[in-house]
């Protein structure tokens, strides 16, 4: 216990002094055991206030201080800095008693508020008198970054990081980077070609010396902590040497197996050996083991026979790669809400009921129809197309409760594009609301209505069924109050966005939280939107929430800049207010080990007692509450200190 405590009571002008008798607080605190200096001052945080505090600490050789003022979230740092710099005392010897937000501002009666302020301040004194001097823990950092997911978010983050001089490992599950954006035809609201704007970035990824690209790879295991993660990545065997592959297509021509092409949303076929599309990065063919007739033993072997570059090697095996990185950006993107969930719209049942991404492919010049909007069923040009918004979104009863955010805009884009392709066609859009917040967005929607004569119908569709080769769309127009029935040649559903399939596993592996809808959880919805709750792991793109391309790019750059900031120093400073084991009391029962949210505790030593990893520990104290033997405590908020604070609060 310290013996020379100083107390500083702030008036905060009239903010505190109006309801708390600050002079009385200062006077009574001066009488508390161990307090040798107590003073009230009009503005403690002002320059003269800070000097008063610094001088008092030095002049009176104070060994602990309490500032009774506003919330510690505001000025704890200020006063700890004063303690350290002006007072030449360890900053952890300073504690804040919050008598403003938690007292003066919420009570009116001065005597009662003063009583409470006395208790709060006395509790802080009791706490600080048992505080230890602590020094932040310096941890050397690895100046490399892993980006998980090679869509536009991952690409942008990787490029920003690489251009800042950091080594980047970009991990992508698919054979190529590009994500969903490369599947898009044009982008709203400017209608610029998606491939044209993304493929230069993809090429840059492959050219940048600071980026190591691992495609067909997935993260398996993560250990370590901020600044020093160790990530185990498993990479599939692709059976083609990218260095040798000349992309001549000879192999695919002889391949006997035909499977649907995922990149074209199964609207076109591909072979077992294939390149997803011409601009794929890395630019190489890849052999899909699951589609191939057999590799062990080799059943067919035709592709290797015809390959003049000798690029095909059936002996390749999956690899496990261990990467050491200082930070991780998670950009695992989205998938469309499962079509199996939307039976009422005939999705998966009728060939001419499509999802938004399929429609993108139909509009795309590189798509299955060479840029002509044709019905998949009979390759005829559809003259009436119904677009259904909120398919699976905003439906807490049976589907996703949230708004998928981009569907209003891309539906308007689809309708517009359709009209550009089929000028004599008619587009209908069923909507609930139109959400077009964004630069140029509202104008774009208006244009689709006015110039392209898209018919917007406010209401939900109840059913879609087939009748004589057409789709009958039954719905209601809530504005006119009439039932609507449209005979359509094609129906396009704006399916809800959901986190991509691997997101749950990635979150689990990385020990980062997800929200109720499965999207990755940010550390703070307003102020820390690109940080996960785990230090050193950052979020970008639609894995965090539905968002459009500009927002995704923004978030990716923001995550990159957070990483750059984090890795700009040689050492990271970690809070020293962490758990400490009392070895004499520890029995090694492992309860704290089980409960620690960070895996920071393990049993070690000859008697297998708990031992805390100083860097992993965040100081939450969950261990302390599960320990039956009071064998573990968080520094500067020990059970002893809480015990004393309880006494102070109750006036014991």
């Amino acid at each position, binding site marked *: *216990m310290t013996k020379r405590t100083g107390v500083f009571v702030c008036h905060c002008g009239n903010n505190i002094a109006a309801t708390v008798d600050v002079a009385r607080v200062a006077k009574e605190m001066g009488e508390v055991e161990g307090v040798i200096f107590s003073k009230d001052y009009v503005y403690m945080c002002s320059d003269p206030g800070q000097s008063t505090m610094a001088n008092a600490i030095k002049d009176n050789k104070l060994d602990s201080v309490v500032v009774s003022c506003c919330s510690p979230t505001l000025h704890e740092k200020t006063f700890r800095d004063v303690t350290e710099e002006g007072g030449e005392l360890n900053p952890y010897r300073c504690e804040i008693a919050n008598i403003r937000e938690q007292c003066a501002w919420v009570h009116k009666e001065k005597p009662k508020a003063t009583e409470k302020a006395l208790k709060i301040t006395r509790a802080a004194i009791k706490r600080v008198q048992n505080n230890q001097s602590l020094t932040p823990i310096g941890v050397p950092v690895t100046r490399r970054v892993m980006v998980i997911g090679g869509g536009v978010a991952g690409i942008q983050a990787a490029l920003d990081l690489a251009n800042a001089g950091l080594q980047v490992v970009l991990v992508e599950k698919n054979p190529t980077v590009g994500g969903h954006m490369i599947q898009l035809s044009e982008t709203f609201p400017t209608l610029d070609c998606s491939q044209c704007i993304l493929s230069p970035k993809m090429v840059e990824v492959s050219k940048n010396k600071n980026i190591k690209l691992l495609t067909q790879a997935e993260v398996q295991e993560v250990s370590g902590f901020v600044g020093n993660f160790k990530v185990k990545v498993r990479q599939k065997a692709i059976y083609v040497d990218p260095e040798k592959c000349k992309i001549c297509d000879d192999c695919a021509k002889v391949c006997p197996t035909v499977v649907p092409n995922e990149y074209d949303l199964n609207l076109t076929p591909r072979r077992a050996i294939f390149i997803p599309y011409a601009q794929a990065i890395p630019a190489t063919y890849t052999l899909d083991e699951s589609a191939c007739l057999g590799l062990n033993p080799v059943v067919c072997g035709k592709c290797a026979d015809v390959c003049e570059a000798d690029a095909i090697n059936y002996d390749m095996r999956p690899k496990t790669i261990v990467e050491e990185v200082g930070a991780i950006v998670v950009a695992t993107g989205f998938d469309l809400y499962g079509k199996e969930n939307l039976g009422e719209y005939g999705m998966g049942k009728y060939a001419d009921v499509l999802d938004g991404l399929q429609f993108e492919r139909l509009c795309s010049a590189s798509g299955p129809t060479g840029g002509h909007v044709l019905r998949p069923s009979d390759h005829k040009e559809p003259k009436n197309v119904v677009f259904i918004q909120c398919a699976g979104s905003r439906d807490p009863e049976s589907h996703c409760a949230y708004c998928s955010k981009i569907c209003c805009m891309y539906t308007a884009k689809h309708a517009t594009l359709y009209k550009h392709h089929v000028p004599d066609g008619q587009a209908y859009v069923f909507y609930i609301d139109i959400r077009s917040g964004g630069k140029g967005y509202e104008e774009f929607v208006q244009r689709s209505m006015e110039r392209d004569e898209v018919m917007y119908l406010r209401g939900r569709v109840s059913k879609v069924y087939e009748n004589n080769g057409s789709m009958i769309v039954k719905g209601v127009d809530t504005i006119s109050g009439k039932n609507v029935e449209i005979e359509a040649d094609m129906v396009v559903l704006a399916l809800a966005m959901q986190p991509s399939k691997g997101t749950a596993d990635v979150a689990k592996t990385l020990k980062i939280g997800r929200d109720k809808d499965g999207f990755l959880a940010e550390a703070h919805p307003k102020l820390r939107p690109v940080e996960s709750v785990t230090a050193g792991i950052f979020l970008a793109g639609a894995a965090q929430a539905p968002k459009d391309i500009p927002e995704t790019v923004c978030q990716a750059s923001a995550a990159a800049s957070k990483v750059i900031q984090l890795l700009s120093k040689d050492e990271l400073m970690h809070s020293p207010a962490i758990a400490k084991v009392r*070895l*004499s009391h520890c*029995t090694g029962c492992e*309860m704290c080990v089980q*409960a620690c949210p960070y895996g920071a505790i393990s049993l070690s030593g000859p008697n297998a007692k708990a031992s805390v990893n100083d860097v992993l520990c965040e100081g939450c104290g969950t261990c302390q509450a599960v320990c039956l*033997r009071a064998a573990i405590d968080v520094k500067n908020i020990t059970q*002893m200190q809480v015990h004393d604070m309880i006494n102070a609060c109750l006036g014991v």
Partner: protein
Amino acid sequence: MIDVAAIKAHAKALLEKGTVRAVIGYRNSTAGLLAEPFVFTGPESVDDLIYGPSCVQNLALYLVNDKKERAHHKSDDARPVAVVAKGCDARAITVLLQEKHFLREAIHVIGVSCEGTGVVDTKKLARKLGGKHAVEIDFDGGEAFAVTTADGVQSLPAAEIMAERCLECRGAHPQLADIAFGEAKTDRALHTPFQAVKHKMKEEQDNRWSFWARQFDRCLRCYACRSVCPMCYCEECVVDSIQFAVLPDTTAEEKANRIKWIERSPNRSESAMYHMVRAIHLAGRCIDCAECERVCPVNIPLRLLNTRLEMEAFETFDYNPGSDMNAPTLTSSFKDTDPNSFIR
């Protein structure tokens, strides 16, 4: 019928071969009907080993004590110790294994069945015999005990003289055992589990407090409950640091940081705190051996208190203490579906 001779033969063989360094079991006591726990170290001594309804003590405690003693004597005999374990004893050992108090390979569990009955409650027996003095008690089939008095042997219905906890026992046959003797009878609870707790819960709260206040007023704080509990194996009890262990690595700061949660004097509030802390610390760990209640010199119904939270473990958290040595403990785990409606 459980074959005590076979248990003896097994114990003897273990000691003869030297595969274990001792066998913890029961032998006839020189004082009273109840058996006494004994550490058999020589093969000949095993002749005294007994097993029957008089073997009420939880031998897990003797394992705990054995560990303490070995630490004290710095014993380097690495051989395992064998222990005779009823269903409840085995559950206690499982909890201790779960808490890494022992290594599994350090213990050889000789599981013994309670033959569909249980152990005797001497108070009930005395009432039943109405002044006569029982000198021996044995299993008598699945539903009776053979009680020997000066008048000779008589068969009494086990349900009438059995310990309360045995009536509610759902795991009379040890789940954890290297070798098991006797018939495996499961789910043979004669009474609804937590009967007394549920009955007490129906009372008015004020009456319940009057009841407990009376109990706590009587507590002498002799700590017999703590001493007999195999789960109270801490070197130092958090509520009462009477046994504060000053070890070579104990720092001055640690010595200074002993929290005085309660006063030493045995009065109502302090005893209430002591017993509540014990109940909380036993949550998910108490396997209902009821030894605390049996040894209490002032008859505080400690089983009633400590099984209250066991009921929650079972019924609310689907957690069965002493059933899985590899599971996380009750309070160091959670489920998303845990009760939430009590929170405002």
